């Protein structure tokens, strides 16, 4: 009987809750806060900062914005369950968030089935907007293809011909290797890929992986591992001399959440995508940096920027749509342009991908800290396929 009573109480509470909170616009946010806190915690601080700024300046169309944020613990099954709760119980007007690519894809599929808009802020897999793209899903961060294309352009300038790759064995890793191979082979047809290593995500056995790569005697290595896998890989690779006299191209390694933990052991001379927040000097970025440091008393991470931009996108689309109806939101999101602490970004009508760019540079150790040097900003639009080509990659209908 307790059981029935609990259900009844839960129902009553929710009725009251929905009456009391009719005012704010509710957004559902799902992320892997306990599975990859290194990225998602700064991300949360980023969107919280933007949310506070938005609500302090009067909200959207006279209504305040509320984010209901939930942890999926890194499990796609959880994420889908939470998505269901968010739209049914909390009556959120749209979904956003997710970090891991497979979770992003799962929520995207859910959004399509349940006809609710989903702004994927972090997952990078190309499938999200191309081969498995759908009307309801948009993506903010530069995709694996975009970042791999930036790196491949740099890689093509080196003398390296024989390449080996190492990537985590799931959607993101597979896409990242495929995209890099595709772009590099196009730019430099003589390259050969001599070995591929696919350690399971966050379960790398770095010593043997390094040796397996060494065995193929490549000229250059393309690395996609991140998080704790990266630390092990760098250590074991350095001590075994794997990176000596070799070009290393590495996705995301310049992001402070992955580079900073390596301290003075951060690799030198790797060509990476990342975020040199310490060296960017534009008025927009300086203002963002000042506000973030004042609010949280800590330095910026890539996650902070993504979280902040996600919230700006949400605010912009709500303002543009002037409604919380899903169809109106989707219509407003297509072609939406807004300012960010970086360059302004646009969500492309053709494939729902934002034109957010990234920084490409070389790693170095400065004052005992891993940093990016010789970096430059590359606009996302410049590395995306044409709208026609992108549209052709999406499922019909």
């Amino acid at each position, binding site marked *: 009987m307790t*059981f*029935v009573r*609990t*259900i009844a109480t*839960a*129902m009553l509470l*929710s*009725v009251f809750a929905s009456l009391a909170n009719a005012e704010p616009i509710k957004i559902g946010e799902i992320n892997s806060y*306990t*599975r990859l*806190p*290194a990225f*998602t*915690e700064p991300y949360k601080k980023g969107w919280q900062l933007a949310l506070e700024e938005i609500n302090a300046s009067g909200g959207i169309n006279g209504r305040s914005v509320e984010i209901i944020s*939930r*942890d999926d613990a890194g*499990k*796609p*099954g*959880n994420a*889908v*369950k939470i998505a*269901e*709760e968010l739209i*049914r*119980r909390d009556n959120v007007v749209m979904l956003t968030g997710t970090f891991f690519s*497979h979770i992003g*894809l*799962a929520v995207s*599929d*859910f959004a399509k*089935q349940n006809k609710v808009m989903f702004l994927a802020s972090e997952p990078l897999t190309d499938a999200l907007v191309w081969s498995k793209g759908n009307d309801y899903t948009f993506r903010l961060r530069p995709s694996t293809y975009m970042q791999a294309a930036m790196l491949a352009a740099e890689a093509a300038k080196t003398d390296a011909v024989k390449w080996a790759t190492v990537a985590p*064995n799931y*959607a993101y890793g597979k896409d990242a290797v495929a995209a890099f191979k595709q772009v590099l082979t196009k730019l430099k047809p003589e390259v050969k890929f001599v070995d591929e*290593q*696919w*350690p*399971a*995500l*966050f*379960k790398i*056995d770095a*010593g*043997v992986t390094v*040796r*397996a790569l060494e*065995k193929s005697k490549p000229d250059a290595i393309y690395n996609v591992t991140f*998080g*704790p896998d990266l*630390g*092990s890989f760098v*250590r*074991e690779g350095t*001590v*075994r*001399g794997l990176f000596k006299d070799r070009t290393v191209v590495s996705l995301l390694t310049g992001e402070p*959440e992955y580079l*900073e*933990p390596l*301290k003075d052991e951060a690799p030198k001379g790797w060509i990476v995508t990342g975020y040199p927040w310490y060296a960017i000097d534009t008025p927009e970025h300086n203002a963002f940096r000042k506000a973030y440091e004042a609010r949280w008393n800590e330095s910026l991470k890539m996650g902070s920027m993504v979280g902040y931009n996600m919230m700006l996108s949400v605010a912009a689309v709500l303002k543009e749509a002037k409604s919380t109806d899903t169809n109106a939101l989707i219509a407003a999101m297509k072609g939406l342009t807004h300012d960010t602490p970086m360059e302004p970004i646009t969500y492309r009508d053709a494939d729902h991908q934002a034109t957010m760019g990234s920084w490409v540079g070389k790693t170095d150790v400065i004052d005992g800290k891993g940093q990016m040097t010789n970096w430059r900003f590359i606009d996302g639009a410049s590395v995306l396929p044409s709208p026609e080509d992108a549209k052709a990659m999406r499922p019909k209908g």
Partner: protein
Amino acid sequence: MAFYFAQFLTGLASASSLFLVAAGLSIIFGVTRIVNFAHGSLFMLGAFIAYSVSQHTSFWLAVTMAAIAVGTIGWCMERGVLRKLYAAPELFQLVATFGLVLIIQDAALWIWGPMDLLGPRAPGLEGVVRIFGEPIPEYDLFLITIGLVVLAATWWTFKRTRFGILVRAATEDPEMLQALGVKPSTLFQATFFIGAALAGLGGALELPRQPANLMMDLNIIAEVFVVVVIGGMGSIIGAFLAALLISQLNAFGILIFPEITLVAAFAAMAVVLIFKPYGLMGKLSIATPNAVEIAPPMTFGRIGSFAGVSLMIVLVALPFFAPSFVVVLLSDIFIFALFAAGLHYMMGTGGLISFGHAAFFGLGAYGAALVVKGFGVSMPMALVAAPVLAGFGAIIIGWFTIRLSGVYLAMLTLAAAQILWSTAIQWQSITGGDDGILGIWPSTWATDTTAFYYLALALCSTTICALIYLSLGQHGLLLRATRDAAPRAAALGINVKARQWLAIIIAGVSAGLAGGIFVFSKGSVFPDVLAIPNSVDALVMVLLGGLHAPVGPIIGAGVFALLEDGLSRLPYWRALLGITIVIVAIYAPNGLAGVFSKLRVLRTKST
């Protein structure tokens, strides 16, 4: 040649660090018969503590202090929690240690924060030695040495010292030892200290190889379980051989099949267990397994039937006035209840403990998803395929597992689930790997939440009623006989093994059906459904509800779902869930159903 020798040494170094952790687990199991799930957490704590200490002093001192500190934590765990559970069935110990895993995870997040912490390199061992021209890190050679030293030291301690002899005596017959004037509890504490300290040492020594991070605990524990199962539970030499086998398999396997490193270890385990069910060096302990309290036959009674019928009426009427999220939550609870009911049947009535019930749930889930994706069949056909496939899985897994009993059987079920889990992750062309299978939505007539609710209610309640009917009926009584007095049951002409096998198949079929319905409620399936936490969830539900009450799984699933739903919005909710689990395991061994009936007995007495 030089390359392969170097690869062998690299594998040997990994084997060494794996062995340290596995040896600790094996020692603790050998003496206390406790399968310590939190052993991976102790390993993680070792790494974190060593990191913190190494910021202020030398690396070597940090390693030593971490080992001592983690040993002390293990000692506290024994005193605070596990001591209260020695007499309880294995289920309670496992579930309680899993509660500790959750608590330690959140504690580590709270203390050390979310970032990965890259520790120092080992001073004096930063370089490489050239062996046949190949660079071998000095630290690897050091690890290999440490592994051999620990192997020799533990072997010597347990074979040659008075302490070791007493510990072995305590393992064989604690009561006799007590009668001779030795307190087994002191020995158990010492063992826990040593086992935990070894895990801490393993974690601390891992620091120069990988950053201390919050995923170390569950990553290592699955591997360590494989090692102790292959080696033979309780055997130190076995653990060493198994660690060697697994690491070398990985070191050389990666050169040929870089994509299936996980499966290789579990496949090796399957092969070993076919020929040596107790592992390479393991033998059946003569100590009697923890006595399962002989519970009176389960009854349902008139009150039960009345409550059941009323509950059904309420559930049928509910969608007419409840909001849609309650309808969805209840559909989930039905699925969980069915999942738990199968486990409850084999565990409560049959006394067959499973740590790997997720295997059947996952088989059903993947079975349903694959027939939809592969053959384009409709939902009803997929819901037939799910229990059928799970049933076939249960026939095979059952055949392996019923050869053993007690905690050995439980570990074998865990092994089976792990094999399926690693297959699901790495057989990407079929299962989609970590990316799962998406887009498995119900037929159009059942997409509406209310329609799906009735479908789930109909299928789950019918199957659960059938399971209750089976437990209360003749089959259940025969199964109970095999649980409580197997030799006598055999003497009476009951085919004990066949009854047990059948019980596992019935449990498998029902869990498979639950998995099938689950896929359509979520629209997708991922390897998580086969992972250890899913098996533990089932155990927790059965434990919460009560092992010996027919309605146990229903109450357990309902309370568990509401608990998780309520807690998961709070910060540090995993620790809260962990604390709840530990408290229930210690203080409410008969679950909530037990608490209710105790209250009822008290009330009847007072009137």
